[in-house]
């Protein structure tokens, strides 16, 4: 196996990965940095797909405290408060850097200053943006900055597993595969940053790119890292309904609701009046998504199992000018967003849970830093729109700085070669079997299983069934084979087998954690425990790999040091009215 030696290895090249690379390099240009991405640089993952924008406190009338409290309220108060505070207090620095050093140009308001638009769940208009397709600019400009620096980029190269040192006490790089050739090789590094993004592809209807199969999380899981609150999966309320097309589930951005777009059920009722009469459609994502889902489940949806999003009363000209990207997307399915109502459905969007980190992105394993969607704790039980790319940039910067410091202190430890060889053989297994399972059938089944049994509305019994079925699917995918076993070059099927293997690992974490949390909070709703239970469940659930295929689960009360228990009021929580 080929071995590349490096100071820092970064898996993932979205907002978090790119910013980590830039910061690590700028902290110390003498470091050798290798960045690997499953896609072409800057093209994979979701930072590029960011539509709405980035939440940041820039206006004198706003305050960090406001942003912080909004983030906690949105997150059902189980956020890691240190991480949430770091998020809001670092955000202005990240935006400053993006605009002044990286070269982005955010939309300006009437006064010539950076414009901030309204987003749901926020007490102040604080979302900076570039029209309604912000991510293109953010990621393109960061990628351009990578070109100015001596950073080795391995495109279409995916991480397979983390490697441990001979003593097994730290992470010393990763086993990777070059998708273009099918070659498996090693990057031996002092520090490894995992920033590959989330896992929403586990659901039938999902918003992110299809490459978000929880690779980073699965890799960290297999290496033994500890996870937090994996049951918290966000569903975005307004995914486009496009039948069997891949466009199905793609987002219509939150700014639409922020600007006053309304939701109606199939009977023409503005149903949010029943679920959150105060904030209506501008309620947080978890509530709006679940409300829509419940309307649909109660048979009050449209005939395509959806609800209507109506922006036409805002004025066609306004919608076309403010949301050109959304208008164009809807046009692809033959509808006119500016002039008629459009069918939308909740769509799997974001994983709030993830690898447990501290405010310097350090995980429970030595030598392993995690940032972006792979990390958990920042957003608690629900993420606010606009806090996602905020998280990626803030923690990407921090991971880069921390990695540079660590890499400078540490010596390069050799990796355990026999372990690497074993991993390699395991990943090559699909090529060695003449017959076997079809990975696409397994993938379809996971998507349906998770949607039905571990989706927006959960119930203990079904979660248990899902957990059992996932174990069976794990065995099934182990028997998967590739149709053409002499073809390792750009073999999509083989990569799908890796994707699905990773996906199942993450699904199991989600399902197990969801079973354990016997209450409803934020994105996690248990039909059998519909109330929020602050007495017993102001807690975080931690999981890691146990013996064999077991999951080790522990729970710990949330550390409420910045926003005390006394300040948490009942009115912050959802009360579902019966129809």
């Amino acid at each position, binding site marked *: 196996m080929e071995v590349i030696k490096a100071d820092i290895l970064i898996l993932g090249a979205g907002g978090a990965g790119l910013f980590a690379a830039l910061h690590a390099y700028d902290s110390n240009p003498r470091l050798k940095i290798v960045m690997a991405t499953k896609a072409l640089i800057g093209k994979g993952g979701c930072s590029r797909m960011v539509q709405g924008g980035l939440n940041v406190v820039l206006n004198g009338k706003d305050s960090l405290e406001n942003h912080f409290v909004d983030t906690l309220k949105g997150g059902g108060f189980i956020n890691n408060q240190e991480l949430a505070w770091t998020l809001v207090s670092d955000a202005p620095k990240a935006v400053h850097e993006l605009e002044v*050093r990286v070269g982005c140009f955010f939309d300006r308001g009437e006064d*010539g200053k950076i414009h901030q638009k309204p987003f749901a769940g926020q007490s102040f208009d604080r979302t900076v943006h570039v029209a309604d397709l912000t991510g293109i600019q953010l990621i393109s400009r960061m990628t351009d900055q990578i070109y100015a620096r001596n950073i080795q980029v391995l495109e279409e190269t995916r991480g397979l597993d983390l490697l441990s040192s001979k003593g097994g006490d730290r992470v010393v790089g990763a086993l990777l595969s070059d998708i273009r050739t099918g070659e498996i090789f090693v990057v031996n590094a002092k520090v490894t940053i995992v920033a590959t993004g989330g896992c929403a592809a586990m659901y039938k209807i999902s918003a992110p790119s299809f490459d978000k199969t929880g690779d980073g999380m699965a890799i960290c899981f297999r290496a033994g890292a500890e996870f937090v609150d994996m049951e918290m999966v966000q569903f975005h309320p307004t995914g486009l309904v496009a039948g069997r097309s891949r466009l199905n589930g793609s987002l219509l951005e939150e700014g639409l609701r922020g600007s006053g777009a309304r939701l109606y059920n199939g009977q023409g009722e503005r149903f949010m009046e029943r679920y959150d009469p105060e904030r209506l459609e501008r309620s947080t994502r978890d509530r709006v998504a679940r409300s829509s889902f419940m309307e649909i489940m109660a048979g009050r949806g449209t005939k395509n199992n959806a609800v209507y999003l109506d922006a036409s009363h805002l004025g066609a000209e306004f919608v076309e000018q403010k949301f050109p990207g959304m208008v164009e997307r809807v046009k*692809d399915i033959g509808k006119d967003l500016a002039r008629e109502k459009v069918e939308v459905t909740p769509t799997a969007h974001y994983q709030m849970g993830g690898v447990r980190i501290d405010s310097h992105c350090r995980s429970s394993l030595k030598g392993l830093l995690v940032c972006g969607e792979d990390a958990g704790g920042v957003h608690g039980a629900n993420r606010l729109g606009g806090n996602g790319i905020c998280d990626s940039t803030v923690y990407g910067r921090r991971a880069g700085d921390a990695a540079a410091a660590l890499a400078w202190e540490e010596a390069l430890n050799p990796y355990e070669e026999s372990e690497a060889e074993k991993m390699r053989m395991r990943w090559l297994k699909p090529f060695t079997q003449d017959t076997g399972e079809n990975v696409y059938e397994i993938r379809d089944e996971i998507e349906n299983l998770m949607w039905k049994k571990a989706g927006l509305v959960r119930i203990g019994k079904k979660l248990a069934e899902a957990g059992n079925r996932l174990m069976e699917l794990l065995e099934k995918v182990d028997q998967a084979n590739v149709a*053409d076993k002499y073809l390792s070059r750009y073999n*999509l*099927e083989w990569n799908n087998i890796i994707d699905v293997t990773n996906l199942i690992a993450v699904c199991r974490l989600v399902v197990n954690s969801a079973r354990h949390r016997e209450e409803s909070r934020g994105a996690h709703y248990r039909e059998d425990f519909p109330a929020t239970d602050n007495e017993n469940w102001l807690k975080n659930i931690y999981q890691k790999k146990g013996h064999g295929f077991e999951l080790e689960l522990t729970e710990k009360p949330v550390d409420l040091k910045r926003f005390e228990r006394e300040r948490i009021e009942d009115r912050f929580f959802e009360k579902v009215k019966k129809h």
Partner: protein
Amino acid sequence: MPEPLHVKVFRFNPESDVAPKFDHFQVPVFDNMAILDVVMHIQNYLDRSLSFRFSCRIGMCGSCAMYVNGRARLACRTQVSSLKTRDITVMPLPNFPIIRDLVVDMEPFFDKWKKIKPYYLPKKEIDAPVTVQPDSDEREFIDDMLDCISCGCCYSACSMVATHKDYLGPAALNRAYTLIADKRDAIRVERLKAVDRSYGVWRCHTQFNCAEVCPKNIVPTRSIQNLKRRCVLKKIGVFK
């Protein structure tokens, strides 16, 4: 059941195949079907060995550009119904080396992108986001041109790229324009020098092929003409 699509797909593995060939597939049609749905259907259910590249599926990442029925397009944003025919031919983008089947090597494209120094470098005195009135002409038409998703459609459609391997091509030049016209940038003159070469802006014959295929409706020709004008202004000392 409506009549299925007759899809002809380009197949080539440079490692083992002597010559490329076409495979034929019958693909059932459904509502809102895009070309990406077509190739995914083939790959998932008809021939698992087919290769193509994609990521975001909603026209934001620029990974899935292909040559469909004689024209470079994003597979995800090309509705089957818009082609107005049941016969579909899918090929890799022209002007690029082929990795396998529909996957091309974007390296030449990004090498040229790098040549124009695509990274922004702020002037020393700028330490805060600049104030720009939205209705001022400070930004010229930069913001319209920044929508580029580097999908390579323009590059594959440009006949100057086809005839000369060194020509920078529409996307790189468009990126150069967005930096050179950005008054915040510190090395605009240096950038302009990098494109003021025979195989920089001067090869553009204003054929507008790039603009015709751009999935983001950018008109790189306009940026290139603007760069040519600036080259002249630089010569007479007006552009500094």
